[in-house]
Each structure stands twice: as C-alpha cells, then as structure tokens.
C-alpha cells in the first residue's frame, strides 16, 4: 500500500477544497432554513439571505463539477468529488454510530454503584403514615398559634 506522506500525491483541490465549499453551502442552507422558519422580522430576512446564498453555493459547485451548463469549464473531477462526498458522509455516519454505541453501553452499564453504601435500614424502619400524621399535627399547631396571634392583635386595636 502507498501510505504516501508526499503532499503532491494528495488531491487537495479535488477533495479538500470541494468539500470545504460543500460544507459551507450545507451549513448556510441548514441555518438559513432554520432561521427563515423560526425567525421573525429582520432575523427572518437574514435567514432567507443565508438560504439563498447556500443554494447559490451548492448550485455553483454542482455546475463546476458535473458540466451542467454549457460554456462553463469544470473545476473538479466528478468521480473524485463523489469519492470525497462519500468519504465525508461515511465518516459522519460512523460518528453517529459510535455515539449510539457509547449511549447504549452507558445506559446498559449499571453506573449507580453507590447504593450499597446507603444505609437502607433507617428507611425500612420508617413508618410513613406516622410521619405524615406528625407533620399534619405540626401544621395544625402552627395555624392555630397564628390565628390566636391575629385575634389578640385585633382585640388590642379595638380597645
């Protein structure tokens, strides 16, 4: 295999530059669609401008690659362009697959291992009904004392 580190062997123009332009076009198209749909007023107009520029960039790269318009000389080799596009999409698909694997493993692995350290005996002995009754009594007492204070204040004012 020719694992060349010679810069001259790499197709910088056909792979890097073409995909750079496609990346800009796709990003502008995506953000333009989002902004023109959800934006309002000035933001919406900017969204339309971004959408338009994204479409122009993608159309230009298509014309410059696939000889779609007569008289316009192609700048990129169409087969190499397709190879570059497939490479980019494959890498993105691989990243998504990797993320799914990571999420799956993290969800399947029992990551909460500190439960053994918890003292669950106290919780088992706890009688919830009794605790609830105690809380209600405390609340009642607090309400009664509040009302008594209000009544004494009112009687003083009347005097």
């Amino acid at each position, binding site marked *: 295999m020719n694992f060349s580190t010679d810069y001259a062997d790499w197709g910088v123009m056909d792979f*890097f530059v073409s995909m750079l332009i496609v990346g800009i076009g796709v990003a502008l198209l995506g953000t*333009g669609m989002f902004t023109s749909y959800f934006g309002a007023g000035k933001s919406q107009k900017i969204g339309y401008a971004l959408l338009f520029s994204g479409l122009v960039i993608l159309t230009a790269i298509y014309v410059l690659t696939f000889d779609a318009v007569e008289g316009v000389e192609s700048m990129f080799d169409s087969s190499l362009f397709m190879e570059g596009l497939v490479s980019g999409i*494959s890498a993105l698909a691989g990243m998504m697959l990797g993320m799914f694997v990571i999420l799956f*493993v993290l969800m399947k692995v029992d990551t909460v*291992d500190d439960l053994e350290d918890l003292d669950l005996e106290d919780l088992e002995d706890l009688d919830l009904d009794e605790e609830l009754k105690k809380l209600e009594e405390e609340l009642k007492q607090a309400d009664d004392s509040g009302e008594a204070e209000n009544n004494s204040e009112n009687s003083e004012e009347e005097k």
Partner: protein
Amino acid sequence: MMDIVISMGFVGVMLSMLGMGLLIAYYGSSKTRNVGFLFLIVGAGIAYYITLPETYADVAFMNGMLAFVGGMVGGIIGIIVFLVAIIKS
C-alpha cells in the same frame, strides 16, 4: 468505493470513541470512568487497525480524510458566517 465507506466509517467511530472516551474517563466516576477507559482503548485499537499497511492506509484514505476535514472546516465556517450575520444584525 466500498473501502472508502468502511475506512471512513471506522474513522468516524474512532473519533467518537476517543472524544467521548476522554470526556467520560475524565469526568466520570467509578464504573463510568472504567467504561470511559474502555472506549479510549477501543478507539486506539481502531486507530491502530486502520493505519496498518495491509488495511486502508493509502493515498485514497488520506484523500478521504482530506475530504472529511474539509467538510468539517466548511461547516464550521458556515456556522461562523451565520453567527456573524445574526449578531451583527
């Protein structure tokens, strides 16, 4: 073409394993951290495999990497253009 799809798919899986493995190994605790180290090892293993001379290591693979990096850089430039347009308005 199939070689490119498989090799670049491996590159994507490797990148997510190394990136997420680093984060999980650093910020995770106990079992989660161990899983993070496992992801790091798997990522390093994939990196070793795809750079073996008898697998995918040739000029086509380097061109695929160029295309991937170009696409990522282009996407980042596009998002910067979007942010500048929104912030300046």
